[in-house]
């Protein structure tokens, strides 16, 4: 697998630009929160969010949610971006999701935890999008956005190209 730097350099070469080099130097991590220094979540909360995020976006042939530090990123997002009301709501959301998954969720092995979360997901995405699962839908949205905003998620998963250079309205799959 190519390193991130190689992939990025490939992009730079493909558009023949030198001015982009500066923009690509020094990779920022999608991690406003330094390991171990939680600014928003309690240790129980981050444990739950990490577990959920890895079940939603697991490691495959590309990195998973934890590999790109999604839960650490959300910790920073809540600390830096959110106001008091949003923070409070987010704490409440996590509590609610914890309740819906049950106390035992933390201890479940991967397969059982996956089944349990899949079950919750099915209920949350029922056609009428029940209100009682809005907390879960909102967390899932944040996890997914954070993952795909990461370098790995954007480049490896979404094959995001910084400078397409042209518009093609029709690419057959």
């Amino acid at each position: 697998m190519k390193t991130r730097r190689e992939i990025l350099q490939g992009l730079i070469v493909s558009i023949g630009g030198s001015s982009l080099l500066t923009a690509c130097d020094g990779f920022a991590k999608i991690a406003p929160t330094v390991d171990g220094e939680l600014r928003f979540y309690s240790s129980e909360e981050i444990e739950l969010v990490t577990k959920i995020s890895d079940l939603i976006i697991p490691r495959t042939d590309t990195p998973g949610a934890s590999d790109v530090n999604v839960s650490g990123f959300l910790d920073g997002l809540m600390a830096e971006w959110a106001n008091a009301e949003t923070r409070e709501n987010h704490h409440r959301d996590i509590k609610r999701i914890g309740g819906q998954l049950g106390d035992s969720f933390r201890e479940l092995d991967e397969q059982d935890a996956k089944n349990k979360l899949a079950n919750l997901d099915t209920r949350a995405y029922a056609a009428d999008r029940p209100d009682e699962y809005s907390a879960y839908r909102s967390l899932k949205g944040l996890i997914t956005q954070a993952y795909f905003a990461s370098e790995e998620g954007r480049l490896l998963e979404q094959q995001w190209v910084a400078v397409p250079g042209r518009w093609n309205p029709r690419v057959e799959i």
Partner: protein
Amino acid sequence: MTDFDAIVVGSGMSGGWSAKELCERGLKVLVLERGPEIKPDRDYVDQLPPWEEKNLDRIAQEEIDKHYFKQYPGVAYAVKESNKHFWVKDDDHPYETVEGTDYDWLRGYHTAGRSIMWSRQSYRMGPQDFTANKDEGVAVDWPVRYDEIKPWYDYVEEFAGVAGNLDGLEQLPDGVYQPGFELTDAEKLFKTKVESSFPGRNVIQARVAHLTNPTDEQRELGRTNCQARNRCHFGCAFKAYFSSLHATLPAAERTGNMTLVHNAIVQSLEYDPEQNRLTGVRIVDAETNEHRFYSSRLVFLNASPIASAMILLQSKSETFPNGLANTSDQVGRNLMDHISGAGANGLIHGFENQKIFGRRPGGIYIPRYANITEKDKPYSRGFGYQGGASPLGNAGGQIPGIGREFKEAHKSPGPWRISIGAFGEQLPNPNNRVTLHPNKTDKWNNPIALFNVSYGENEHIMLQEANKDAAAMLEAAGCTNINSNTVNLTVPGNRIHEMGSARMGNDPDTSVLNRWCQAHDVPNLFVTDGSFMTSAACQNPSISYMAFTARACDHAMKLMQENII
């Protein structure tokens, strides 16, 4: 002797053109810009990759409440953490509205004004737009017809660079275009279905001020092809979209005739009653609070319609106790915008085996048909729709499922969605106005703006109908999951097409400017931002401001050569 031949107030979309045209005709031009300098190398953030954006590029919520409480809710799609320096801080630049009304004054104060942040949709006004007031007995007649402005549209499009298709529609005249951005197959299907189900309606490519085949002149100015990145609200290292900073100001600069002064807040224009001429401009320095005066033979007001009206209203004298060039009492009145809040979206089928490459800057446009090809409407004037069809993608996480499958689903384009949204014409109404606040001032001691703008019945009815029409067109194209929610009429000003505050007309008793954007009352004053608009049409207006500005500069120069001004 004056300090300068001409002073241009404001360096934005229209001020850049004034600067270029006057400098290229050999005048020594001073451009006064109230905001700080934008330097692309330092201030553009278009090359920031998503993973380097702070907090998903969201401005902290407390910061929004404190500094961007109007700008952010008004234009959330373009006001981000990384480019917030392109937008004014609302607490530094307050304004008020009359009780029971609301107004969005969305803007940036810096080099090139909003030409840095605009969405670049560029449509000419059509012949019907210049005769509508007269035909319907509304407001006053335009003193200009399409044929007169046509060559100036040609001229500004050629220089600015607009990508689009030649569609041969009378109401939306073709221009000088570089190759457009091809429609997706889903859009082509939509076009076929709409045009066959509703003869007289058309679906065309958006016309956008982007370079797709730059001219030699554009290359000389360091501009190059659009790279289809859709990062335009953050600046553009390729200078591929038109802005004053990419095109007109550099063209003015290279003549050696331009002096551009930043942080110069124009407060008033100085009038000499003996000569019936302006003698110059008074400013306060935004950083030092120092007051200065610059003299010139000619003044072009390009501060944008609200600011320009306020400068005129602030320039009181014995001759003009109600504000400069305001014997008609029309300065600040007839404030218009476009209206939105109606439209539809839905899934369009048959393209599941396709995706797109690149992020083009515009999609489709449905030119106005109401009261043009379809005359059975319960309202006057009309609207166009902007929109597009593209794969919905699965980002945002709002699809069912978890695990590998959920993750993999993000590689697929997902279903295709089409959406269209109306931009309608607001009728001129003298009671819709901006005035100087009677007792509140900003931190430079300038009166703040007081808005009193509301919509009339025509606007409400029009948007209801636009909503129905949108859903009907999506149905005709076989779309499913159609959302066409109840109309949610945008707040006045929200479309950021404010205009009309110093309208042009034939009669000095009822209009501020003549057909050349020249003040009826004061011959060496020209106002060529959207203030001059006698009616709003429904097309995005900036290309019209450019054309009228270039034409006005040409006329002013002739008057100067003949020593009339």
